[in-house]
């Protein structure tokens, strides 16, 4: 008995879940956080599956959730996969796909998406449609604690996976339905209590408030933080994008740049104080938010090593910055657009007034992306992003009885034509090295050291040559890739997980 107990203790000591060291490593046997590691590169250094053998890739297992589309990136730690949809979290054996536990909780609030869970030690953390934050015991799925972060009756919900940083969880907030200001909160890992809060919309008199016409419209807010940010431990900074201002289409009632909406911000992780920002779509009037994953790259720029940050924003511009100072190095459009008249001295696009939505309709051309996790391969030095190029006509629609803009949209748009595509950008210049059309359309990307990029194209799951974009493997999985692929090694075998609607598929080479 003593011996058995001893063995059991050894086993539990070996399986301690995620620790800080694991989060600082490249993801191999584990994929312990939303993007694999803190860099946001969504890159796997595994190369068992590679350009020479990917054509033989086979289904290893599948997991049927019987639920809505999975928009999450799964985690894998110590041979267990953790994944979620709104109101549900599962743990499954990452070798067989067999369920270990299932946590479910019926909630009010917006069920648009759950983009995944976070893990630290033996706890699983996630947000809910009613804007609560929950900690589960990773061994059995039992709830350890639950706290309310915001009031769902004002349209708040949590879709982003929390980001574990030191002793905190950084919790991004969602909420597009309402005129409420966005924010980012740091919560204590142990009990979920608030540590600091960063508000995306300043209060009257605070820096940034001068970019709004008045306090009333400023209070209508926007600037949600609904895509997980990234973290640089050496600089002690975390980088997050913010959502668009409200009312979305009615720029006429909020003249000015509308800080800090549509911005990429660098925050001190201990205090939440903002160190620098860049606005990717100043005075946005077409829902061109900055809720895209920034990618941290330690690389050469103009002949010397720099700590860089790269972002392909929804505004259609690619940004390369010095991530310590926020110094702008490159700002270039990555596709056709008619809304910007160039770039200002801070590296921010300058919006043209004549594309603002009007009652008679304003013509708009844009290239854009979304939450679709981009990927960076240190091997090819390419930044991969799913994008879309299109034309639309946008209308300003005040309330007909009062003539005022009363709802959070203030108008709407009719799409005329659009085309989805995958772009491989040179990270130093933002120039397109290769592209494919028909690719993407609502999923994230994974690049690997096997020289591959995994994505969706025309209803097929595909593996592309990361250097050229050539298709090396494809299969029609009976649904769309709705989340982001990720990869891990278990028992000497590399797996790639792909959320396809409500089913999680695991792919591997034949045994």
């Amino acid at each position, binding site marked *: 008995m003593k011996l058995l107990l001893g063995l059991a203790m050894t086993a539990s000591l070996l399986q301690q879940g995620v620790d800080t060291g694991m989060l600082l490593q490249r993801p191999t046997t584990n994929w312990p956080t939303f993007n694999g590691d803190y860099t946001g590169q969504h890159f796997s250094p595994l190369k068992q599956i590679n350009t020479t053998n990917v054509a033989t890739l086979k289904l290893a297992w599948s997991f049927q959730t019987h639920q809505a589309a999975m928009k999450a990136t799964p985690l894998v730690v110590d041979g267990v996969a953790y994944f979620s949809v*709104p109101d549900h979290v599962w743990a499954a054996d990452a070798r067989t796909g067999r369920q270990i536990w299932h946590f479910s909780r019926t909630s009010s609030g917006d069920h*648009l998406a759950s983009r995944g869970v976070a893990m630290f030690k033996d706890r699983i953390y996630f947000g809910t449609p009613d804007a609560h934050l929950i900690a589960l015991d990773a061994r059995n799925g039992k709830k350890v604690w639950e706290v309310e972060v915001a009031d769902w009756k004002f349209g708040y919900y949590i879709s982003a996976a929390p980001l574990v940083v030191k002793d905190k969880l950084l919790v991004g907030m969602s909420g*597009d*339905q309402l005129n409420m200001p966005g924010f980012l909160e740091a919560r204590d890992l142990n009990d979920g209590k608030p540590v600091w809060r960063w508000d995306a919309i300043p209060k009257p008199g605070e820096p940034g408030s001068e970019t709004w016409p008045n306090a009333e419209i400023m209070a209508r807010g926007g600037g949600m933080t609904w895509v997980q940010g990234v973290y640089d431990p050496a600089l002690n900074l975390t980088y997050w994008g913010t959502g668009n201002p409200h009312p979305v289409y009615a720029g006429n009632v909020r003249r000015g740049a509308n800080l800090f909406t549509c911005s990429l911000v660098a925050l001190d992780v201990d205090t939440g104080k903002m160190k620098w920002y860049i606005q990717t779509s100043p005075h946005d009037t077409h829902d061109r938010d900055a809720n895209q994953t920034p990618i941290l790259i330690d690389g050469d720029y103009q002949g010397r090593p720099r700590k860089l940050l790269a972002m392909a924003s929804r505004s259609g511009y690619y940004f390369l910055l010095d991530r310590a100072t926020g110094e702008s190095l490159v700002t270039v459009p990555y596709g056709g657009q008619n809304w910007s008249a160039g770039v200002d001295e801070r590296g921010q696009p300058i919006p043209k007034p004549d594309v603002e939505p009007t009652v*008679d*309709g304003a*013509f708009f051309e844009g290239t854009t992306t979304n939450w679709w996790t981009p990927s960076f391969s240190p091997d090819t030095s390419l930044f991969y992003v799913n994008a879309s190029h299109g034309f639309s006509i946008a209308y300003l*629609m005040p309330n007909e009885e009062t003539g005022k803009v009363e709802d959070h949209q203030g108008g709407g748009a009719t799409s005329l034509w659009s085309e989805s595509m995958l772009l491989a950008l040179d990270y130093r210049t933002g120039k397109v090295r290769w592209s494919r059309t028909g690719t993407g359309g609502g999923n994230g990307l994974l690049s690997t050291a096997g020289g591959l990029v995994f994505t969706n194209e025309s209803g097929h799951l595909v593996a592309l040559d990361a250097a050229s974009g050539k298709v090396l493997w494809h299969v029609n999985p009976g649904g769309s890739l709705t989340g982001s692929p990720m990869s891990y090694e278990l028992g000497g075998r590399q797996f790639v997980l792909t959320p396809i609607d409500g089913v999680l598929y695991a792919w591997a080479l034949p045994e």
Partner: protein
Amino acid sequence: MSRRLFCATIVLAAGVALSLRAQQDSANPNLLRFCPGLGIPCVEITRQAYDRGHEQFRQSCGFCHGPTAAGGNGGPNLIFSAVIRRDNQGADITKVIQEGRPDKGMPVIPLTPTQIADIVGYLKARVAEVDKTSGLRPSRDYDLKKLLTGNAELGKAYFNGPGQCATCHSPTGDLKGIATRYPPIELQARLMYPTGVRQDATVTDAAGKQFTGELVQQDAFDVTIRTADGMQRSWPSRTVKVETTDRLAKHRELLSKYTNADVHNLFAYLVTLQ
């Protein structure tokens, strides 16, 4: 709130309801249904109840809170009010109406229980209505006057000149009466890029056999056409030669050239083709 904007909301709400509950409410056009977010229960109210509550609200509350509850002469916007949003079955709203908020300068409003119930119904619907406007598009009966800001003569000149529209279209041929065939808002979008236009393709297989029909889908992997017998046939893209007639190529070319003035002038010209 006019009927016009209402229609937009009903269409939108019905669409959401369809995807959420797989049921249609278009059978009952008198029922308004506002669905604020995915998985959030929709608010249903009859048009009569909404109008009655709206009118009562205008009379009793509109002076301070605005006719649509979005704020007015000193009174706050009630759509974003915590009391309204957290109200439980009308009890909290009723209390405020009956007791007033003397500390904030709001008097007691003398109303009957029925009148209060009408206002409660309106406010709850109004909150859901404002919350659910994501993806709002102008309704099919968007007023022509709002769109008619261009110059028809300049539009005609663009049609025959730089737009090169006259190379494919004729105001006395295919476009005769075009303005009567579509609601103005659709006409405006269609003049730039028409939807539902058939594309044809001829597929030549490895043996040299040709198949002609409507192009259903073409991508890096497969090509599918519907032949004259109504059947669909598909081939791996790499095994066949595909020739397509793209009737919209010129429209796509123009998309990257239009200015707002071109669009509005062209629209004004097409509106004259009655």
